[in-house]
């Protein structure tokens, strides 16, 4: 079985978000980049499937050379191979189109993406990709079992969990729960050494034009100061919520 794990290279969750060039671009200065947390759950699951399903795992990122450190980490976690499609990630559409082109050349039975990325976090790429490739699609996936060509899976929906099955090929949007937080694989020395021998191919991009463009970024306005209420004056809190904020 061939598994593709799409990796988004995102600012560490503690990063301060700032913009440059007249607020038209994200300021990467001093920002540490990591594997998108939702993708990491999916990658760990894929690595487990190397044994349980004799799977071959490829990690792929659409991005410039700065994403290679993140791809090396994916190899250290256990991916067999990494691919970088060589162009900046302009928008979800162009990223999905670039991945689609790759998937037309190399056949995958299962494509794992994150439910959403934590940077531009549209939660768009996996659905787009499924639509473009005409694959089945399930997102918010918290359980996945594959036997031969059939997948059984659960997804979180509002108010419960839905369990379904379908035939491969399939695009999955992964999140916490697919594997537990404590199951995430932390690369050890051996993994890191082995990752150096594994292939990291750079392939040329199709040069797809994006369909959306970030024109200008801004940050939320600074909050006014918190109104403190004394612990023995809770009636005042209720009054504020009822008559000032009008939320209860």
């Amino acid at each position, binding site marked *: 079985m061939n598994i593709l794990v799409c990796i988004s290279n995102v600012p560490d*969750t503690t990063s301060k978000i700032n913009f440059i060039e007249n607020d038209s671009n994200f300021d990467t200065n001093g920002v540490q980049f990591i594997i998108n947390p939702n993708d990491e759950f999916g990658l760990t699951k894929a690595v487990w499937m190397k044994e349980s399903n004799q799977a071959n795992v490829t990690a792929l990122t659409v991005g410039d050379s700065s994403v290679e450190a993140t791809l090396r980490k994916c190899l250290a976690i256990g991916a067999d191979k990494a691919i970088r499609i060589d162009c900046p990630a302009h928008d979800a559409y162009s990223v999905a189109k670039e991945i689609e082109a790759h998937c037309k050349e190399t056949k995958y039975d299962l494509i794992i993406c994150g439910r959403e990325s934590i940077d531009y976090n549209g939660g768009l790429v996996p659905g787009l990709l499924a639509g473009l490739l005409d694959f089945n699609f399930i997102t918010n996936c918290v359980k996945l079992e594959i036997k031969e060509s059939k997948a059984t899976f659960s997804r979180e929906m509002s108010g419960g969990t839905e369990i379904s099955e379908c035939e491969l090929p399939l695009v999955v949007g992964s999140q916490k729960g697919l594997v537990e937080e404590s199951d995430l694989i932390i690369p050890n020395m051996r993994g890191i050494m082995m990752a150096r021998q594994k292939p990291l191919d750079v392939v040329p991009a199709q040069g797809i034009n994006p369909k959306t463009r970030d024109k200008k970024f801004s940050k939320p306005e600074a909050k006014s100061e918190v109104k403190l209420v004394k612990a023995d004056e809770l009636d005042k809190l209720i009054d504020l919520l009822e008559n000032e904020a009008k939320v209860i």
Partner: protein
Amino acid sequence: MSVLVYIESENSKFKKSSYEALCYGRALADSIGKKVCGVVINCSNTENLNSYGADKIININSSDLVDFSSKKYAHALVEIVKSENSKIIILSSSPNSKYLGAHLSGITDSSFVSNVVKLPESSNPFIVKRTCFTNKAFSLTELTSDLKIISITSNSFGIVEKPNNPENETVEIKGISTNQKILDIEKESGTVTIADAEIVVSGGRGLKGPENWEMIESLAETLGAATACSKPVSDMGWRPHSEHVGQTGKPVASNLYIAIGISGAIQHLAGINSSKVKVVINNDPEAPFFKAADYGVVGDAFEIVPSLIKKLKARQ
């Protein structure tokens, strides 16, 4: 050409977030001088939609669409997009609607922008304001494809009633199939879901253990709220994963968010910042949450929460 709004329903009941999407659609259509058409699936009684300004409601009737499937629903919507010659589709930000929007944009080769918080800044070029970097920033984003799909963050536009007498049409669609089959749905019993909730009551590690959640549930029940928790609380198994909110958990965009025993780490705040009003209850006045909140009480949750419940109950 009309502005199309997908209206989500569950057991023939419409979602509040879909009413909001319809109101947004109405306002958008007015600004560009177009009509607005709501699309429901397998809902013959659409009277409840009449308050929100639709010019037309199309009910897609299909035995193939009994269960939600993004692929099947997307294919059905494409038929309506064609027949209505629509160039703009509006969805809510519910999990299923976002799920559908992404699939739809793949099938139609068009642009989709999610997490939109305001009416478009301009319609030609079509530019919308959306959140990004998990609520740490906004972006003005231009959509350039012919068909444009957007989904609206809950509670960002609000509900603006505009009674109307929409034209009703039923469309039969047949022959949409996938090999995907729903085996079972495990419903969480009788709870308000985080995505639909007006009020969310959330507990953190400060509550010491799962046995202390009774007061959280009781406060939530008193307010008609959903319950939520911080990440460590769900990691330790005190509460189910489905309650984990924050940057790597569920997003919260409620009107009121009450954080109890939660420190207010950047990853937690990122996910709940879209909530309108935030209240923090924490015994450490230095807890970062006090910088992000609108109202705060410094003190012991084990005293404050029961007392608050008592006062709220007395008021009802």
